């Protein structure tokens, strides 16, 4: 008996092996990572290209010789019926047949066509090719593990191998349509985050006295439904300290505290809020929050860590954007497509281009040999940051397959990928030793930014060539002296000419820019020929399927999505799509971040993940209200902050009550203001402010700019980035792998990670830092000098110390024990006559250090 398939020869593997035959299946349960092996294999293959070819030839010849030349024999069919079909039915069909409950991995094993076509990612069985048949890998549990819970007996596995080797005879006719994992978008839209933002009706609550704003009504309604009551207002002294740190990241001066404590009226509060929102320090505080989200850093990180000397421009842009209250929708647009906007003037042109630095700042694997893979990794990183920062979605999960938890098909990932693939990224590391992916920068020429080369790593080449040149010249002299043959001398001369030529090129590359003040910028531009990109099978950069037209995520499109212009990259449309009023995520995600920075937690606590695996909002209506207010107020961040801090919810005290603590230990329902710890930057800045050494002038550029291009740990020493100034912490150099100690110790997030909220850890390394670090020791000395010069009386000095650092007077008990300690410390050297001339200052510094190290200083009540 001969089946149709056999008759037309389809059961035989094609002799000319096309890409399809080399595909390997990916079992989706764990597929993303399976990919990594695949990447790895490709790498090795690339690397060992020669070997690849020879092995391939070998396999081919084997394959040909072992192929069944004729149709399957009855014995072979019997083999299938006896040994193979029963196992498939018993072990595989429940997940991989048309009759199965759900078809996993788009893989159907119940027809010949299905088993040969394979699943989402390739052929499960390639007749005659055990090594190409993923089914065999899976049953052997080599990487893939099928059946998932148990491994088949060795003899059964051997049977499958035999069967594949004999050409996988398979009498099972019938069509099985390719199974596509399809997403039901309509159904998915029932998920809270994908529903339209509806401005909710403000609820009314029983307690009519407490609420002063709409926010309070939402919060109170939740509290009442959980039988909880709000806390009393915080004492003015605490409130003003909280407000200062929250808005500008610095403590109020004793005078500022005194003024507010004397007049804590609503009007005084409002005026203070406005003053803080309008101060330059506001942007330095809130800009840093944003820099966490967009993984701002000044080097590539990874296995070759090259500096980004121009990254600081983006940092300053962000600070300025918050200070000028740039509408958040505009802020989004500039970062994604600033280069495509029409600027009003040169300054705006510059800012717009610098804003796109956001897309260029990510970590990069510069040692990557495969250019296509490098390009697709950059695209992936850009999709990751854009989707998580603006949409709270982990779209990068769909690089290799449909998203496992959220309604994001793989095709839509490549719709976005087409946009970024049509974009050139300028990160300016230069090229050089170990950096296979040299990066250029953009420079302003007349009215346009144009790509320019940078000199990174080339100086080394100049040195090397200069050395060679010298050696050859010496050789030439010697050759002439010793009367070498004409031919030999000519050879040397030739070599000299060649080296001179190389040196000239290298010098040109290494030369400092022609215009010393040339404005160099990191960022992106549309590429020369924007185009759609192909879906990559299992995310493998070089495994191309069909091109996918550029576009956006269906799940976040409730209105009409803009059509990406095909002659451009489509970034402008992407930005427009993100800020569409119908986009259900952008405003919610933005409002939630702002709330988080004022309360310690977001209404959705997973601020970067609004998907199925994320947190659910504690106050969904409040979140929509805030999102609505944000958009209604022209996306003004300052307005939303003003609105929130004016609520009574924000002004609550932070002391616990036993009942509430038991009912809601995490304070999800906001029965108080959660006590919060100062983040690394706020702590450092506060220490500097209290000691009187804080320099409020913004940094010019960065230490990294001074250090210049290079590979950290190789051409640049890790200690090149030490900072001695006392400017605000936002200006400290953020070099990946070399984050300043103070920041690292106090939970600064790994700058390669897109961080939405920071860890709060308490470990002895932090205590050691407060007790012994040169920074704290030095600052406590400066603070002691301040106390010693500003006032004469011991008790007054203690008061001043408390007021500067904690915003309150010291109690009599505190004064007494502090003075006792100072006395002891002062006389400590007496015993062995080690008293130093600065003993008094040091004793006071010891006291100051206690204040700076105290939990009260490090926490916001």
């Amino acid at each position, binding site marked *: 008996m001969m089946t149709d398939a056999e008759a037309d020869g389809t059961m035989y593997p094609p002799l000319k092996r096309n890409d399809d035959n080399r595909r390997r299946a990916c079992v989706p349960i764990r597929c993303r990572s399976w990919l990594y092996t695949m990447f790895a294999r490709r790498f090795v293959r690339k690397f060992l290209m020669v070997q*690849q070819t*020879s092995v391939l030839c070998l396999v081919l010849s084997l394959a040909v010789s072992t192929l069944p030349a004729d149709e399957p024999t009855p014995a072979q069919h019997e083999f299938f019926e006896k040994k193979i079909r029963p196992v498939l039915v018993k072990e595989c069909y429940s997940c991989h047949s048309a009759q199965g409950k759900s078809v996993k991995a788009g893989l159907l094993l119940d027809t010949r066509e299905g088993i040969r076509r394979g699943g989402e990612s390739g052929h499960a069985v390639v007749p005659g090719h055990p090594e190409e048949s993923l089914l065999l890998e899976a049953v052997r549990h080599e990487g893939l593990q099928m059946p998932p819970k148990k491994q088949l007996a060795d003899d059964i596995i051997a049977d499958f191998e035999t069967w594949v080797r004999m050409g996988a005879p398979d009498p099972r006719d019938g069509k099985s349509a390719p199974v596509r994992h399809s997403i039901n978008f309509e159904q998915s839209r029932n998920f809270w985050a994908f529903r339209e933002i509806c401005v909710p009706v403000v609820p009314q609550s029983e307690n009519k006295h407490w609420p002063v704003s709409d926010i309070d009504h939402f919060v109170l309604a939740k509290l009442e439904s959980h039988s909880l009551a709000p806390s009393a207002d915080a004492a003015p002294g605490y409130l003003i300290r909280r407000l200062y740190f929250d808005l500008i990241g610095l403590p109020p001066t004793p005078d500022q505290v005194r003024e507010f404590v004397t007049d804590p009226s609503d009007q005084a509060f409002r005026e203070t809020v406005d003053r803080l929102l309008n101060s330059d320090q506001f942007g330095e505080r809130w800009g840093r929050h944003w820099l966490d989200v967009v993984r701002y850093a000044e080097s590539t*990180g990874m296995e070759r860590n090259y500096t980004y000397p121009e990254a600081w421009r983006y940092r300053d842009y962000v600070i300025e954007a918050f200070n000028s209250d740039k509408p958040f929708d505009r802020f989004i647009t500039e970062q994604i497509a600033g280069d495509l906007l029409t600027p009003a003037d040169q300054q705006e042109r510059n800012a717009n281009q610098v804003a796109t630095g956001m897309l260029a700042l990510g970590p990069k694997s510069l*040692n990557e040999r495969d250019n296509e893979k490098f390009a697709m990794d950059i695209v992936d990183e850009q999709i990751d940051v854009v989707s998580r920062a603006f949409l709270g979605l982990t779209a990068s999960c769909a690089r290799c397959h449909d998203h496992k938890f959220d309604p994001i098909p793989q095709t839509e990932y490549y719709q976005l990928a087409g946009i970024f693939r049509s974009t050139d990224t300028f990160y300016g590391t230069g090229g050089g030793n170990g950096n296979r992916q040299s990066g250029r920068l953009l420079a302003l020429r007349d009215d346009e930014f144009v790509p320019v080369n940078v000199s990174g790593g080339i100086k080394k080449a100049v040195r090397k060539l200069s050395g060679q040149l010298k050696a050859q010249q010496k050789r030439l002299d010697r050759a002439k002296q010793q009367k070498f043959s004409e031919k030999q001398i000519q050879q040397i001369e030739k070599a000299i000419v060649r080296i001179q030529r190389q040196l000239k090129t290298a010098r040109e590359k290494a030369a400092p820019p022609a215009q010393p003040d040339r404005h160099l910028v990191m960022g992106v531009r549309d590429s020369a020929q924007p185009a759609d990109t192909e879906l990559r099978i299992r995310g493998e950069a070089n495994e191309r399927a069909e091109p996918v037209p550029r576009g956006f995520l269906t799940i976040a499109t409730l209105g009409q999505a803009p059509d990406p212009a095909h002659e451009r990259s489509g970034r402008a449309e992407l930005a427009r799509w993100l800020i569409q009023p119908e986009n259900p995520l952008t405003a919610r995600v933005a409002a939630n971040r702002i709330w988080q920075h004022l309360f310690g937690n977001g209404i959705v606590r997973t601020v970067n*993940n609004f998907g199925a695996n994320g947190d659910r909002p504690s106050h969904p209506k409040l979140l929509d209200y805030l999102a609505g207010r944000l958009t209604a107020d022209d996306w003004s961040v300052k307005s939303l902050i003003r609105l929130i801090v004016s609520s009574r919810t924000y002004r609550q005290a932070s002391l616990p009550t036993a009942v509430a603590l038991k009912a809601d230990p995490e304070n999800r329902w906001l029965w108080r203001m959660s006590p919060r710890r100062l983040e690394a930057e706020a702590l450092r800045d506060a220490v500097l402010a209290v000691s009187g050494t804080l320099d409020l002038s913004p940094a010019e550029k960065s230490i990294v700019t001074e250090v210049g291009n290079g590979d950290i740990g190789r051409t640049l020493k890790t200690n090149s980035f030490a900072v001695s100034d006392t400017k605000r912490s936002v200006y400290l150099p953020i070099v990946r792998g070399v984050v300043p100690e103070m920041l690292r110790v106090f939970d600064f997030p790994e700058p390669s990670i897109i961080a939405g909220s920071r*860890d*709060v*850890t308490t470990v*002895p390394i932090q205590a050691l830092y407060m007790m012994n670090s040169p920074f704290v020791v030095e600052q406590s000395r400066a603070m002691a000098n301040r106390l010693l010069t500003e006032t004469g009386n011991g008790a007054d000095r203690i008061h001043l110390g408390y007021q500067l650092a904690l915003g309150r007077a010291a109690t009599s008990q505190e004064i007494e024990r502090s003075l006792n300690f100072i006395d002891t410390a002062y006389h400590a050297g007496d015993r062995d006559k080690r008293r130093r001339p600065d003993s008094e200052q040091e004793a006071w510094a010891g006291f100051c250090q206690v204040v700076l190290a*105290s939990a009260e200083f490090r926490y916001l009540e």
Partner: protein
Amino acid sequence: MFPYSRRQVLKSTSCGFGYLALAGLATESARAAKAVAPLAPKEPHYAAKARRVIFLCMRGGPSHVDTFDYKPGLKKHEGEAPGNIEGAASQNGRKLMPSPWKFQQYGESGLPVSDLYPNLAEHADDLCLINGAHTTLPNHPQALVQLHTGQFQFVRPSVGSWVLYGLGTENQDLPGFVTLKPPSRLGGAQNYGSAFLPAVYQGTAIGSNGQSIREAKIGNISNPRFDVKTQRKQMDLLQQSNQDLLQRHEPNTELEGVIESYELAFRMQSAVPRLMDFADETPQTLKQYGIGQKQTDEFGQMCLMARRFAEAGVRYIELTHEGWDQHSGLKARLTENCGATDKPIAGLIADLKQRDLLKDTLIIWGGEFGRTPAAKKSDGRDHNSTGFSVWMAGGGVKGGMRYGATDEFGITAVDNKFHTHDLHATTLHLLGLDHTKLTYRYAGRDFRLTDVHGNVADDIIG
């Protein structure tokens, strides 16, 4: 008068040291923002064979065919091309070069070890030679980062961080994960970083490449201002103020954590330098490690320090020995490297054994890959990632064993292949952790050290 004694303070702290309060618990992680003690010892998934790890990282890729992978085939085919065997292309068309060193069999097991490691060879019956190791790429940067984090494409937590996350640590006066003289390049801090795991799990670097271990210190470990007695008074003043705050906020585990962290830090100031000071070691012990002899002094000190850390309850200890990248000068430089490490490692094994610590201390020796059996200019070998050797000792692995094998020449692993992922899976397994279950939720999904890879090499487990 200070109303609380230090003992009372410690008693009152309910959660033990190392409080982790999480604003939205560990970024995008679990829901419940509860107080947890992230470094407190944790129960493993199942009974552990090993309680701690000492990883001897031979940076650069030590030549396996000259040390632990005996290949008589190289002698037989000296000067020939490797022929048509798998992986031959990685030899860059060069000719096979037999090892310039002799191999001898040692111990009851008769493990073959080259003459480069005479002292270590005395412990042959404790060694489990893994001859079928392989890794993804023959490139230092990627391979070293993969060796340390399982991944080179993305920034991921290091092995030590995962172990600390999974098991906590036994001595709260010390960091739970230390790395002595880690390289500053080739991933640098990424190799001991915690990536998306909370920062408490990152490794503590002691010293750096090129610096003598004698000069290396943990940062901020001593007070530049006061003597201990005065500093204690200062601490008392500080803790009084902290207690006042706690009283206002009680119960507050986070504040308790702060109070305790200061007490621990105070103790660390004496505990750590004491641990790094060898004054209480006998001359015999120092000699055993080769301390005081020029060739072995530096690594001997590092090994002794590793033992002291291990003994004190540090969970994961890494030592880096640089300079195994012998593209040229193989004969001289490999002799030098092995000479510098042989006695110290042998001393470490003997010492741990003597203190009954070897049984639950897993020693791992290896580099990011091995070296080509084919020669570069007759005195150098290139990178070989398709087959190389690592070895383990103690910590529940079988001694006197050769596990896995490369082909006739040592080019490609052919039997019981042992990928870097398998090394990680097996390491975790020996520590009582299931590498498929040790996960952390980040960016909307659960991550693990081995991703979807990794097989435990059951055969080597005693």
